[in-house]
């Protein structure tokens, strides 16, 4: 009995330490490590990648090679021009950008796949030894090819997304079990509506559209639906459509109403009235004094 307890104890210790190490390390699945970009990196793409990098990554990682990353973060983000970052394969970098791990955000819903590859193409410019593996051709891709169609059902007041997949016989059939996410376009980024949903047997998924979401002047909103796929085994492109289903929003500028802090033509009526009346009163008093002085002088002459 005591021996069994000891064994159990040892097992628990081992399991806990295993859990601990796995919690600390950021393991990239083997099938993701070998993933390669679908196109060759070019100076143009590297430039695009630099733009995305400075907008999304620089706040923690700093500019590569300048060692200006944020030292207070745990785990440390590190300089991406250093060997530790550069010795990773493209697939590993892609997986880490896609999935994130606190405090690093996941960029799955923020950057498109191409944009993530552009960032990698930019990072590779800091590694003179880097040779890009051959891009994944269309023939190499073994996953599903999924096509999305989005419509708005005005009767049910729901956004319908229909997923079809390409079969081996080159026909399109309804695709079941595909995770779909719905976003609405906003000024600084896309906002997710509800949780991701999975397509049913007919390849169909329904999203509720919030009744109080503001649109533009005519209530138009731009919706984007895309496949929720972390593994990269599904090839599909996001679908964008505009529908007049939001709340029409045309609020006046904040300087439109009359306010006491505003400029002269937007001053409150009572200020304009009070000012005008007081000016008239003061001037009429001055004029009446002048008239009476003239009258007194005339009287004096006669």
């Amino acid at each position, binding site marked *: 009995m005591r021996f069994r307890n000891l064994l159990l104890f040892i097992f628990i210790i081992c399991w806990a330490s295993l859990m601990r190490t796995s919690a600390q390390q950021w393991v990239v699945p083997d099938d993701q490590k070998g993933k390669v970009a679908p196109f060759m990196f070019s100076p143009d793409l590297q430039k695009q990648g630099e733009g995305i990098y400075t907008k999304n990554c620089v706040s923690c990682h700093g500019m590569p090679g300048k060692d200006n990353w944020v030292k207070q973060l745990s785990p440390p983000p590190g300089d991406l021009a250093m060997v530790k970052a550069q010795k990773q394969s493209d697939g590993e970098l892609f997986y880490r950008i896609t999935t994130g791990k606190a405090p690093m955000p996941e960029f799955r819903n*923020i950057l498109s796949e191409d944009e993530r590859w552009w960032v990698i193409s930019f990072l590779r410019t800091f590694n003179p030894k880097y040779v890009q593996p051959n891009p994944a051709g269309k023939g190499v891709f073994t996953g599903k090819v999924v096509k999305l169609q989005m419509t708005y059902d005005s009767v049910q007041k729901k956004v319908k997304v229909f997923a079809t997949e390409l079969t081996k016989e080159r026909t399109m059939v309804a695709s079941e079990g595909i995770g779909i996410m719905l976003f609405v376009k906003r000024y600084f980024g896309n906002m997710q509506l509800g949780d991701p949903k999975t397509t049913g047997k007919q390849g169909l998924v329904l999203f509720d559209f919030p009744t109080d979401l*503001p649109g533009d002047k005519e209530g138009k909103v731009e919706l984007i639906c895309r496949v929720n796929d972390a593994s990269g085994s599904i090839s599909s492109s996001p679908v964008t459509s505009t529908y007049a289903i939001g709340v029409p929003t045309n609020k006046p500028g904040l*300087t439109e109403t009359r306010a006491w802090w505003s400029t002269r033509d937007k001053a409150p009526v009572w200020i304009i009235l009070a000012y005008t009346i007081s000016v008239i009163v003061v001037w009429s008093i001055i004029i009446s004094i002048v008239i009476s002085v003239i009258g007194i002088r005339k009287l004096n002459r006669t």
Partner: protein
Amino acid sequence: MEDHSTHGPNHDDGKDKGSSRRDFLKNLGLVGVGAATGAAALYSGHIFEAKKEASGQSKILLTQDGKLVEVDSLEIKARSKSGLDLLQSHGREGIPGKRWVMVIDLSHCRNARQCVSACQDAHHLKPEQYHMNTLQMKDSPDTAPYHMPKNCQHCDNPPCVAVCPVDATYKRPDGIVLIDNERCIGCRFCMAACPYSARIFNWLTPKDAEKDKDLVYNVELNVPQKLGTISKCLFSADRCREGKLPYCVSACPNGVYYFGDENEDAVTNGTTKETVRLSKLLRDNGGYQLMAELGTKPRVYYLPPKNRLFPFEEAKDNQPEKV
């Protein structure tokens, strides 16, 4: 008839005189035309010489993308005036249809001060000048301390704008309160009126005065900073125009800041770039405004410092604030 008879003898007498006067006038005309032509020739020659002299000189200029180029003096056309006019009118109009709003989540702030340095870099401020500062707060002896980033609250009822005697500080239709350093007379009424102490005054020569002296003044960036005038947080109006998040928001490594458009009911986190609904964020997290009881209607919301993600550490790098 009478007139003719009386003038007749005179006419006859002065026949020679008349012809000599005509000749005189003719000669005078000829001389005049000749002189004018000569003068014109001389003047154009002078201009040509002047041009030749000027074209010998070239100037080294800095282009917008940071390249040094050598340009002939003659080819330089003063665009600075029209550029300034454009920036000034942009700066007054704002971005139509927008109402900018900021949300600061105090539970995430660990005083990394990346927002402060990004802001100071962008607006060419000295280390002791703050558009945005992280303050160490403790509401009462028994409550826990926390860090609080504080910038201009871009009030919808701005006391600073009301007191400005020269319309230098103004509110835009999109909600941003800006200061036009071209108009500011340095009276500092606005500093006295602001309950949030959000404004600073350039008492001394600004940081990059020498470097920035040829820059066209951008009212949406307050660069170049001007001696003897006010400077303040601008919600990075220049970045909003480009569809980018403000400097402080995108520099934060801890997800403290959200920024967006109230009309769209959406704010985007500067760190995670995740866009969420403004109304839900404020409702679920007990959002509040700073000193809302003053009736200033701030456009900056705070989320309370509950369940703080980082322990409080005394700040070591805070410069004493000089307003």
